């Protein structure tokens, strides 16, 4: 087995990689034929309705289910008194045991909206009616959801994503700097808000637990579910054809799947649990609130001497998490001293987890806003400031970069946007009653690949069947993986059949971390290589080969591998109303080789739309008195609607990742990063007022 990957191109057939082919499932999706977890018809299906806690902390003192059980159609009630016992050690390899998985295990309530019971009935209406009749009594206890960096419980975060940076002497470099920025930035909790609410349909087939579940990781979810319920993995099978978006919220075992599994086993019926939109907000994880201090010091020429980035975020006491806000500070710019700190405050909240671009989205808002403030104080073009601090090797790690195209993104983005000739002073442009401003920001985004396995079968009819436990949550994975397989096998597009969305296929990474295509693509390349070698001896068909990339991926050299972007924004501000409108957004991205330009452009554009929402709209609001999430619906939790979004110019610069067999990096999340800072910097340029807290609401912009 080779330990260093070879670049594989189409051999003899028209290459499929690089072709802007439309989505394989596009016609199904525009004609209503695409099937999501809630669309599957199952015989004897019962429906579960979730009952959630109305207090933020306390103890359940009683559950009166008499009226519920007497209600028409109700089959059963599951709560902590009769629920199946779960394995308490179940969790993630990065963060350890996850208390969020321990549903209905005891009488404790540790956050508002926690599921406390499931009512199962013949129809959804009967289940909901039964749920409303369930009387749950709680002894309320004082809760604490007051987040802040000076909270008495603040402590260092886990270091599973790398230790704090301590390069050079930060204080000395700051003291020696001609210009210093020392500011605090705050970002609210935000929700993924995938359009498809989390839905699971579960039934037993002999000893096998079968589930159709909306998730981002069929294999990972099956493995975790097996551990949680104490079953051998071969007795758990999780499938899904289509998933209506994830953005991080469907990477793990969701409450819908745990509750549906309990009900299916206890009641011996197929059971569907489809979370309501409110329950999606209350029971599936959000991005944590952050409070960040950034200190930058530079000499008069704009060369950075010091980068200090201290970030504090909230977690639940029930599960660890790392919102790695300081990742970019360790890698984007050269500086004599770089110091990062990451801290957590445990509160009585739903456990937090990944939402698209975890860490980097809030982290880049802070760092790239601070860079703009530094440029202002230096009276320098913020683009030029970024040109002057390009590192030759990893600024903290000292490791070489594999492919660093940040400067090219800046150059191409600036050219396309028309940045040259900008007056860098604020509040210089007025059009009627509107103030106009422009701003920019950039980022890096970690890329790698995780071990996965793929099986390819050479069929007697000359075609190939590729099976991998991948999932397409809207990324275009189906289309991309088929193209990768066709090229790796050296055959045309039509000669490849692809099977995904089934845990039974074998171990594979999730659609998460922007690493689906890199991880799955590598496994397909490995299986194609091994199969082609096998076919040289002329075996009888069909013949199958399964390959696993663990060894190849683990033997890669340690290097700095990142995607890059530069984002430019033009905004208008109405000072009388405080309304900010984004007029133009330009993004240039170095995301490695592009498997399908149509789909990658869509993903980057969509990422930028989410960045726009984060800048201007998104904010989970908790009521301090009750501890409850008070805007758990789309009328109150806002994200961009069509009329909020201009045409967006998202494009790629030439890039190729040498440590990936296909030259790939992940484009899934980087679009979301840097946008909030670019917009905030543009709002400053328009108004002269800094926006250091997201979202940039009307009340933070309006002028007297």
């Amino acid at each position, binding site marked *: 087995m080779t330990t260093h990957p070879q670049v594989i191109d189409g051999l003899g057939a028209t290459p499929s990689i690089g072709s802007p082919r439309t989505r394989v499932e596009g016609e199904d*999706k525009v004609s209503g034929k695409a099937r999501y977890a809630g669309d599957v018809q199952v015989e004897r299906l019962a429906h579960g309705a979730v009952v959630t806690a109305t207090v933020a902390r306390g103890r359940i003192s009683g559950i009166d289910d008499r009226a519920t059980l007497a209600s028409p159609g109700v089959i059963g009630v599951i709560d902590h008194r009769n629920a199946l016992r779960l394995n308490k050690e179940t969790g993630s390899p990065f963060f350890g045991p996850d208390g969020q998985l321990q549903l209905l295990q005891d009488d404790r309530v540790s956050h508002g909206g926690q599921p406390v019971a499931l009512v199962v009935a013949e129809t*959804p209406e009967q289940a909901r009616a039964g749920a409303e009749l369930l009387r749950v009594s709680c002894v309320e206890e004082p809760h604490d959801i007051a987040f802040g960096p000076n909270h008495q419980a603040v402590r260092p975060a886990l270091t599973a994503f790398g230790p704090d940076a301590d390069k050079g002497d930060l204080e000395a470099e700051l003291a020696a700097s001609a210009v210093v920025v020392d500011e605090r930035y705050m970002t609210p909790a935000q929700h993924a808000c995938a*359009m498809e609410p989390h839905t699971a349909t579960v039934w037993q087939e002999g000893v096998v637990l079968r589930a159709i579940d909306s998730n981002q990781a069929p294999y990972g979810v099956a493995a975790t579910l097996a551990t949680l319920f104490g079953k051998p993995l071969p007795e758990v099978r999780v499938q899904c054809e289509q998933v209506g978006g994830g953005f991080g919220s469907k990477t793990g075992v969701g409450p819908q799947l745990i509750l549906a599994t309990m009900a299916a086993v206890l009641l011996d019926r197929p059971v569907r649990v489809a979370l309501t939109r409110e329950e999606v907000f209350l029971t599936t994880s959000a991005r944590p609130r952050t409070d960040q201090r950034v200190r930058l010091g530079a000499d008069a020429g704009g060369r950075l001497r010091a980068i200090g980035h201290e970030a504090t975020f909230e977690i639940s006491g029930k599960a660890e998490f790392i919102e790695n806000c300081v990742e970019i500070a360790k890698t984007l710019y050269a500086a004599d001293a770089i110091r990062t700190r990451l801290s957590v405050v445990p509160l009585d909240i739903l456990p937090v987890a990944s939402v698209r671009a975890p860490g980097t989205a809030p982290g880049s808002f802070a760092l790239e806003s601070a860079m703009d403030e530094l440029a202002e104080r230096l009276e320098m073009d913020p683009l030029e400031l970024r040109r002057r601090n390009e590192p030759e090797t990893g600024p903290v790690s000292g490791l070489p970069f594999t492919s660093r195209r940040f400067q090219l993104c800046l150059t191409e983005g600036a050219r396309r946007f028309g940045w040259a000739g900008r007056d860098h002073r604020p509040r210089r442009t007025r059009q009627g009653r509107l103030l106009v401003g422009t701003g920019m920001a950039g980022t890096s985004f970690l890329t790698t690949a995780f071990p996965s396995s793929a099986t390819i079968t050479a069929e007697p009819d000359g075609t190939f069947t590729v099976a991998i436990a991948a999932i397409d949550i*809207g990324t275009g994975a189906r289309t991309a993986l088929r193209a990768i397989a066709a090229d790796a096998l050296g055959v045309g597009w039509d000669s490849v059949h692809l099977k995904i969305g089934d845990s039974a296929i074998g171990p594979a990474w999730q659609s998460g971390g922007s690493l689906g295509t890199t991880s799955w693509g590598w496994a397909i390349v490995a299986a194609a290589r091994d199969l082609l070698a096998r076919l040289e001896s002329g075996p009888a068909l069909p013949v199958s080969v399964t390959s696993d990339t663990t060894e190849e991926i683990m033997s890669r050299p340690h290097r700095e591998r990142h995607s890059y972007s530069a984002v430019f924004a033009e905004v208008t501000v109405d000072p009388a109303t405080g309304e900010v409108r984004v007029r133009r957004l330009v993004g240039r991205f170095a995301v490695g080789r592009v498997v399908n330009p149509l789909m990658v452009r869509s993903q980057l554009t*969509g990422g930028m739309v989410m960045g726009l929402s984060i800048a201007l709209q998104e904010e989970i609001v908790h009521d301090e008195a009750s501890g409850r999430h008070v805007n758990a619906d789309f009328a109150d939790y806002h994200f961009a609607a*069509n009329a909020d979004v201009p*045409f967006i110019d998202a494009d790629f610069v030439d890039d190729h990742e040498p440590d990936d067999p296909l030259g790939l990096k992940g484009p899934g999340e980087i679009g979301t990063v840097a946008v909030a800072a670019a917009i905030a910097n543009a709002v400053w340029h328009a108004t002269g007022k800094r926006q250091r807290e997201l979202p940039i609401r009307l009340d933070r912009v309006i002028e007297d």
Partner: protein
Amino acid sequence: MTDATRGAISLQVNGAEHRIDVDNRRTLLDALREDTGHTGPKKGCDFGQCGACTILVDGRRVVSCLTLAVAAQGSEITTVEGLAEKDELRPVQEAFVRLDGLQCGFCTPGQLCSAVGVLAEHAAGWPSAVTADVSPDCPHPPLDADEVRERMSGNLCRCGAYPSIVRAVLDAADERAEVAR
């Protein structure tokens, strides 16, 4: 079985009649999805806030999650499954695929029904909140990107496919204009 909480009703969906027995509380969305086998319309919020359940009732856009099934008797219902004509995608469906006006596809059935409604509303001369001239002298304001954005804003898309959705609707409008010529 009909009692105080249930009723036998008849729904006309995509040109076919469906006689069903429903819980009187059942929404039109749930009746389509659970009783008549039309799982194209999606339940994104069940509160009329996201538009994923948008269908056409007598040619007009409605959110089926806020419509009771029993109230839809006697109306012509069109879901995303009924948009294609003789198994041939409509121009706006074809444009959504070609221009990638979708990603996860969950909001797409609602976006498409909405788009068909928008094109019809515009053709009938209905103004929108961004129509500059609503005087009788200007019965057909041009359908530009801003008009499409405004008129399609009842349909949320978290993948952020809006720019491609706008292009696809404009593309279909152009094609329709050419056919009309």
